[in-house]
Every structure is written in C-alpha cells, then in structure tokens.
C-alpha cells in the first residue's frame, strides 16, 4: 500500500525573503514582476494578504490599498530552485521525493514512517523541522498523491487520511481541490457544486458529458483508480550498495576492506543480471557530515571485482577520512549489458586479450586522466595533419587501407618549423638549410610532392614537399609554402624526419 505526503508552502518565496532579510519580518511586502506592460504581484507576505492584497493584483493597485507596501522584484526561477533544495533536504525522510510546482513537495513515504514511530510522528517531524527553519508549511498524508494534495491545501483539521479512506476525506472539499482547470471549476460553481460530495456519486457518463474526461481522471487519481505519475528528483540508482560501519573508519586498509566488500556485493548482483558497469562512484559519508566521493570509469562493461578494485586502489589515497567514515555507498550509474561485445577487437581470436588490454587502458586512464590514450585510423586526406582520425573505441576498424604509395616521415613535428634555405634554382630542392642553428648540406633529394589545402575545409597556400638527405644520412621532410613570386621569396619549413 503506497503512502504519499504532500507538503505545501503557502508563502514559499516570501518566507525565503524574510529569512534572507530579517528586517522584512512582520511587514507588508509583495514580490512583483512585469507582465504585459504592468507590474503584477506574484506573491504577498501574510501581512499584505491580511490587508486584501492577493496574487495577480497590479502593483499600483496594491500600493493604493496599502501605501506603506514594499514592492520587491520577483525572481521567476526562485521557487523551483528553493523547492529543489528543499526536496533534497527531505531525502532524509524518504529516498523518493518530487517537487510539485509551484509551491509544494511530494514524498513517497511508503515503508518509511515506522522509522519515526508512526505516521503522525513522521509528519509532525517534517512540519516541525520546516517550520523551525522559517517556512510556513502544511503537510498531509494519504494513499494517493491527489488526495494528499487536496487534504493538505483544503483540509480543515485532518492531516492523515487513513488507508482507503480517501473518499471520506475528499467529500467536504471544494472542487478546486481536485486540481481542475479554472474553467471547469467556474462551471461547477455555477451549477452549485460547492463540494466534491455534490457530484462524486453521479454517473461517470453524465460527468464526462458535462465536464470532459479530465474531471474523471482527476477523481480517479484522487480515489486511487487511476495511476498518477511520480518523478523523483533523485531517481534511485538501480545498482547501489551501502555499507554502514559500526566504528568510523579512518585508515586506508579499512577503506580497502569496505570497498572490497561493496564491490563483491555489487559484482555478484551484476553477474546474476548479466550486466557490467561503465562507471562506479564510491561515496564516503564522514561523521562530520561531509561527503567525499571518488569515481572510476571503464572502457567496456565490466563486472570483475579485481579489475574495479585495482582502478579504485589508485584513488584511495585521495579520500580524506578526517575523523572517520561511517557509511560507504557504492553506486553504478552507468551499466551496460555484458554481451559478447568483446570478440571484435583487432579480430583477435581470444576475447581475453581484449579484456586485458581494455583493463590496462582503464588503469592508465584512472591514473592520468581520460585523454592520454589514442589510437588512429586512416582518414582520406592528403594534408598530413588531417590524414589520421582518432578511433572512437577499441573496436573500431579502419574503413580504408593505410596508404603507402607516398613517402611519409616516421617523426612528424607538431607544427612545421621555419628553416632558412639556400635554393638557387626555383622549383628545385634547396642546396642547404639551417634549422635550430645547424646547417644541413643536402646531398640527395626526392620530390616535389605537391599537397594542396582542401578548399572545402580551409583556405591557404599549397605545400611542395621534398624528401632530402644530408651528408650524415639523416633524412628530412621539408616543404616550400606557395609559389615563387616576383617580389617575395617563399618560406620553407621542416615538417618531419624519415627513419
């Protein structure tokens, strides 16, 4: 049997403002923002409301009603931010909390209340704590979200609707409590339906003809016949393990033992379900209220305790236990099915080889960061800087063969470096060139090989590459940028070394 709690903050934004600016407490002020050329009141403090100022009034009218009124600019996103923060805070009461715009929260309290000694105590604790922190708050509990919502906002004194008793609780409430659109509500009032009990027993076909399917859906949700969606802010991790400690843990061996246990629990579950993790987070909750977390990633789905432990081992020294860790939580947010994905790499027969290499790369990446390992595939470009393509995964195979019809240097400089040359004959390789203060006298040369810029990628001059050899036998790849012109001499660059 599900139990839901609806929490309503009647003055959410104004309460927040009072918390931030205590001098506003007990004064009349409104939050307003421009809308269609007028400044409209978005929220009013309880004192202002007592003077008859309501939401939706034009600020100028409100000032006329109450000249001492302070008008403060409204932040449209504040409510959502506040609700998110509050919903996170309520995670101490239940793992499933959702925000209910514009001014409420919904908690799935199923199976949680006995920890507080019953539903009444549970609800009282929530309300007392929220009130203690300065928010005006009302809460109610029922079997359905809709019933809890209605009772919370419109109920007279009842706070807890006993299981199965939604209908009785709803009977005296106004139709607005069903979260209907204003047009339907107006129509109902016109027909004299001031309370839910005036129409709830009518035949569904009659209600549908008059008010549409929406009313029936809302009624069904409130009574529990129709399912209502619930979107928790913090969806539970399907793969997570917890390990509370009797005594706070402060040493690295202690953390290792805890980690080993957690990994064993996680991996045994993963193996049963045929899943492997791609990302694992270890959260360490310390007794001083702080939380430290370390994260590892793998390049393939893995459920091997040994491998995951090795990856974490590198990170354990970065965890600061301070006064001690009382709770370890191991979460696996990214999980993939462990298929037979491993046999494709490099057409290697043994899948083991693949796994070993992937594990090795994981370890290297865990130590030094994600962008250290590279593998290249051929790209169909002549321009040397563009003729390789980084492989996206270990499995990727080249689509085209590597070209070996043109000489390419075994060492390529990151950027071509300028050299001074003496080239007496245009369109011939130079006689000698000077690079980094050293003069290389060229004895033999091949070329030129002209490589043009690809105009659809980049504009620029072409390069005429020569393979040259100096007296000692060292071989270089040098190029001339552009043509010989009448007025300017072209520049020469060195771009690589041949073996």
């Amino acid at each position, binding site marked *: 049997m599900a139990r839901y709690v609806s929490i309503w903050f009647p003055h959410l934004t104004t309460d927040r403002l009072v918390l931030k600016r205590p001098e506003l407490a007990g004064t009349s002020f409104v939050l307003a923002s421009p809308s269609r050329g007028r400044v409209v009141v978005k929220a009013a403090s309880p004192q202002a409301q007592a003077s008859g100022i309501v939401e939706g009034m034009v600020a100028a009218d409100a000032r006329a009603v109450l000249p001492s009124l302070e008008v403060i600019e409204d932040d449209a996103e504040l409510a959502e931010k506040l609700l998110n923060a509050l919903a996170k805070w309520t995670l101490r009461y239940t793992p499933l909390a959702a925000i209910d715009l514009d001014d409420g929260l919904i908690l799935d309290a199923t199976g949680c209340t006995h920890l507080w000694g019953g539903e009444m105590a549970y609800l009282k604790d929530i309300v007392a704590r929220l009130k203690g922190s300065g928010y005006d708050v009302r809460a109610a509990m029922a079997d359905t979200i809709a019933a809890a919502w209605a009772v919370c906002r419109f109920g007279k004194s009842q706070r807890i609707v006993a299981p199965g008793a939604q209908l009785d609780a709803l009977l005296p409430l106004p139709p607005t409590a069903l979260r209907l659109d204003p047009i339907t509500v107006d129509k109902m009032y016109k027909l004299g339906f001031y309370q839910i009990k005036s129409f709830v027993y009518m035949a569904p076909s009659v209600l549908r003809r008059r008010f549409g399917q929406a009313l029936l859906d809302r009624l069904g949700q409130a009574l529990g016949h129709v399912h209502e969606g619930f979107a928790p802010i913090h969806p539970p991790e399907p793969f997570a393990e917890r390990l509370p400690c009797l005594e706070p843990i402060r040493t690295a061996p202690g953390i290792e033992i805890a980690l080993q246990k957690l990994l064993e629990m996680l991996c045994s579950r993963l193996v049963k379900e045929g899943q492997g993790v791609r990302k694992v987070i270890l959260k360490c909750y310390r007794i001083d209220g702080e939380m430290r977390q370390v994260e590892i990633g793998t390049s393939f789905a893995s459920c091997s305790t040994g491998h995951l432990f090795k990856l974490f081992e590198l990170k354990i020294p970065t965890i600061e236990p301070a006064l001690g860790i009382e709770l370890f939580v191991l979460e696996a947010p990214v999980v993939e099915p462990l298929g037979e994905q491993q046999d494709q790499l490099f057409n290697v027969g043994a899948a083991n080889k693949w796994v070993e*290499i992937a594990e*090795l790369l994981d370890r290297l990446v865990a130590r*030094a960061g994600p962008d250290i390992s590279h593998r290249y595939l051929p790209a169909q470009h002549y321009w040397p800087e563009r003729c390789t393509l980084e492989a996206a995964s270990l499995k990727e195979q080249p689509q085209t063969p590597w070209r070996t019809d043109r000489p390419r240097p075994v060492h390529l400089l990151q950027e071509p470096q300028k050299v001074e040359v003496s080239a007496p004959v245009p369109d011939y390789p130079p006689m000698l060139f000077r690079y980094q203060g050293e003069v290389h006298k060229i004895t033999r040369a091949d070329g030129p090989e002209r490589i043009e810029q690809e105009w659809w990628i980049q504009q620029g001059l072409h390069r005429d590459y020569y393979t040259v050899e100096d007296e000692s036998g060292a071989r270089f790849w040098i190029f001339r940028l552009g043509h010989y012109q009448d007025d300017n001499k072209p520049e020469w660059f060195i771009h690589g070394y041949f073996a």
Partner: protein
Amino acid sequence: METANDKNELVARLRAQILSLQGVRVASHHKQIGTGLGPIQAAFPQGAFPVGAMHEFISTDQGQSAATSGFMAALAGFLMKQDGICLWVGMHRTVFPPALSFFGVAPERVIFIDVKKERDLLWMIEEGLRCQALSAVIGQVQEIGLTASRRLQLACEQSNVTGLLHRINPRSMNPVAAVCRWQISPLPTEGQAELPGIGHPRWNVQLLKIRNGHPGSWQVQWDNQNLKSIRTQDSPGKGQLLQAG
C-alpha cells in the same frame, strides 16, 4: 636451528633469482621471432632474438632518434606478426602513425599513450609490460636509473612481453638492466650513382651490449619488409665482422 634453515633456503632462493637475472634461464624462455632481422640474428644467444626482455636504444640527435623509431617499429612489426597489439608510451610524441605501415606495423594496432607527467611515465611503461595481452611496449624516456630499469626488466620476464626502451638524448650512458643496448644511426644513400633520389632506409645498427651474445655492428637497409645487409665500398670488413659476430 629453524632460522638457520630458513636463512639457507632464502640464500638458495636468492641465488637462483640472481642467476635468472643474469640471464641463465634465457634459452628456454625466449621464443624465436621472425627471421626478418637478417644478418643480426647471429649475434643473439642461440641465434634467437631475446623476447620477453628489455631492449635499450640510445639516440643522441634527431636523425638517430628517427632512425631508432623506424628500427623499433620494424622490431615491433616482427613481434606483433599479424594480430599483436603494441603500446607506445611517451611524453612528447612525434611518431606519425601512417608512417608505421612502411615498417610492417598496422598503425591501428598501436595504442599511443601520451603521458603528461614525468612521474607517471615509468609507471605506465611498467603497467604495460605487465599486461600479457600486448606483444610489445615501446617506451620513450630521457633518463632512467638502474633500479627503475630493473623493475621494467622484471616485469618483462614475468609477462614475457618485449620492452623496447628508447632513451632520447640521455645525459649519461648509465648502465641499465636491459639485455641489449642498441644504437641506430642513419646512413647516407650510396652506391646508386646512376639512380637519383633517396633509396630505402639505411641504418648503421650497433649492438653495443648483449647478454650472452656477441656485440657487433651492421650496415643494413630496410627493403621489402626485411633487413638486408649492405656492403659499402669504404667498409669491406663489415661483412667479415658480421660473420664473426
């Protein structure tokens, strides 16, 4: 009494370890690799290239460094055969992957690790050497001490992965625990007066140190995916040296 026995045992075990470190058990462990090494093959103990060991390459300038990369790629190609995978670890990588296919290595089978911090470099090479799925690990370092190199050599011996350690511009030629020390320098194109242009890559391969083998020097060229001996006019004695070595 017991402790004395333990000590004796320990000493015996240590002796055995020292022997294995000195390369006594080499013969059974080292498998034959392809015969592409041509003339150099004879220099190795029992004529087999030492697999599962560290090879040290020293280069002192850019030309040598490029020649060494080519030679190492050729060795890696022999070690990888058709389906092996090689790890290339270094700080400032200049190797141009497409060029590796000239030396019989499929560039997509090489995984490059570009290390950013120097203190990670040796750790990564060692970690690579411990991975039995790799055929070869090529490491580019500048300085390495004896202790660190011994760690690498031990990792090689355990996993039977071949390590090729390229020391670029080392400050001193300090000894390291590798089975071979190589120096490769480029040779100018010669003997093709009638043909213009540049021929096959030509190297002067010096095997400065080899454990239980015969050091020597060879002039070779990389031709048709094989190393072939060349005899130049000015050094007719090289051929004999090769025979002797």
